[in-house]
């Protein structure tokens, strides 16, 4: 009531000023509310011990716009950083502290390093800038995208090519020990398992899949016999025998540790689809493990990589 009386006394010019002020104030309020919402999400992200709460916070923060027309914040992290915090928190909740979350000097930006690797290798997320959304876990020196994650759609896709390039070509072949590499791999693989087990993510472990049922699809679906011939010759030189596959068209090789590697055409009539499988009693060995441990298998794989490269999800790894 009082308002209306007062309002009557204010002329049109003042009215417009009031309107402006009010608009400004509303703008501030909503900007501050946005900031407050942000800090609340941040609290969740860094402090919660509940998985779903953590994921919900990360999901919102990963495309949160903190600045508004009236309120901007000079100190901010990038959206990509929230993925990194989420990953570190999730690993931490499972007592895996191998991925060390560092912050760059003089700026708010985060990255991972691993004690087992030199600081030359830094890992962070790169948000995908198109309608698909999601983000890649990216190693900066080599530019390799190790996996793709989409929090909303709850999916994770590992990328065989990036793992081969980084962990074999750049690290193993330059003298980094298999144990060190395995520690880093274990953390990344565990991250996939936690997403799968805690949140029901759809995870494609790709070349890292240890399940006996995993069929690693080869880039050259209709593999030329020459490539298999090469394995036959090199295996013999290393005192292993590449045998004729007992089922269907293909070959198999028995390696120490009761490992059985099959390479065969798993396609249907008329459409070849050559795959590799790795069979071991405890389902603890992936094709990537074979590459890490058996030099002649690795040499063969790398020398024929155009044919043998394991296919990753083509939707996110073109």
């Amino acid at each position, binding site marked *: 009531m009082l308002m209306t009386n007062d309002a009557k006394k204010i002329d049109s010019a003042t009215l417009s000023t009031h309107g402006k002020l009010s608009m400004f104030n509303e703008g501030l309020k909503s900007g501050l509310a946005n900031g407050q919402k942000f800090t609340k999400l941040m609290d969740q992200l860094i402090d919660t011990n509940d998985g779903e709460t953590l994921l919900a916070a990360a999901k919102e923060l990963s495309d949160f716009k903190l600045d508004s027309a009236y309120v901007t914040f000079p100190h901010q992290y990038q959206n990509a950083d929230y993925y990194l915090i989420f990953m570190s928190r999730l690993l931490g909740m499972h007592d895996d502290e191998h991925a060390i979350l560092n912050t760059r000097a003089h700026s708010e930006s985060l990255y991972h390093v691993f004690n087992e690797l030199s600081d030359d290798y830094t890992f962070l997320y790169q948000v995908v800038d198109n309608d698909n959304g999601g983000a890649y876990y990216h190693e900066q020196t080599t530019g390799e995208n190790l996996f793709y994650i989409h929090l909303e759609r709850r999916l994770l896709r590992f990328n065989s090519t990036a793992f081969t390039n980084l962990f074999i070509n750049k690290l193993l072949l330059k003298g980094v020990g298999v144990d060190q590499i395995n520690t880093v791999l274990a953390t990344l693989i565990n991250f996939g398992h936690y997403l799968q087990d805690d949140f029901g993510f759809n995870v494609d472990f790709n070349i890292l899949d240890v399940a006996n049922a995993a069929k690693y699809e080869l880039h050259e679906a209709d593999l030329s*016999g*020459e490539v298999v011939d090469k394995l*036959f010759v090199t295996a013999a030189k290393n005192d292993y*025998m*590449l045998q*004729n596959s007992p089922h269907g068209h293909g070959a198999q090789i028995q390696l120490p540790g009761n490992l059985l590697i099959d390479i065969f055409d798993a396609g249907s009539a008329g459409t070849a689809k050559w795959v590799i499988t790795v069979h071991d009693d405890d389902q603890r060995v992936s094709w990537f493990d074979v590459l890490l441990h058996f030099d002649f298998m690795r040499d063969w794989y790398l020398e024929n990589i155009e044919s043998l490269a394991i296919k990753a999800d083509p939707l996110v790894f073109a």
Partner: protein
Amino acid sequence: MEKQSQPDLEQNEQDQPTRELTNSLQQKLDYLSTLRQAISAGDDRLIYELIDGDHYHQALLNEEPNPARNTQVNLITDVHPAISHYLSTKLIDYLAHEYPFFYYEETQLGEFQIYFGNWWDRRRFGKLNALKVAFEFSQEEFNKLQKTFELAASHKRFNTDAIQRISAANDQLQALIDAQGDRDQQKDKLRQQLKENGQRNSLFDSGRIKDERQQIIDQLTKLADQDEQANNAHATMKDNEAKILTLSKEDTILAYEKQAIEKSFKSFENFNERNRSLYVDYLTTLIGKAQVDADDE
């Protein structure tokens, strides 16, 4: 029906040729029914004796040849594939033990392809003749294996020389590619010489200058040829690598075959000897088995 119930009467009425005919037909019936019984009873030894009695008696009983033993065998030529199929079961069981590196595929009834080994791209090594209990090796494949054993004495493999020759050719091509820079320098020098040669003009010495010019041109042509070879070298080298792979693969297969034979027979000679005595050896085990079975009863 009525006639059969009075055989004596009928026989008495027959003349000599008819009696011979009925005898002969009876012998055929006996032969066939014995064979049928042998198959029902699983008496493979007897089947072998029936399908080629002359060979059986010579090989196992050291008797003189006598074609009369095989009078009836033509009765069953049309069912040879089926008999072969039947006999193969026990024979292949036996062979699996004696020749653990041979594998068989029945490509059509009673026809058996031999595969040597269970390694990648193992070779088809010929056929198994189950009726004769004999390997019929592919001559070409067998010769390669024989050569492999011969070469082993000089620590060579079947394709060692060929691989060396092709590798050397590839080394040469690589050298040709590597020498491109040198050739480019030489060509520049020769072209300069050619230019100088063209500027010289002598009434008295024109023959010599002409000769010199020709020499330079010849050298340039030779270098151009080498350039072209170098340009094509990559394709040739790739072809050569494919050839080397094929040869290495064959060497690997032959090495496995040689190892397999040495493991089971110690030597290639023993292997061949065993192959020659396969019929006798197999039939002897069948006889031995029959003996054991009889003793058990």
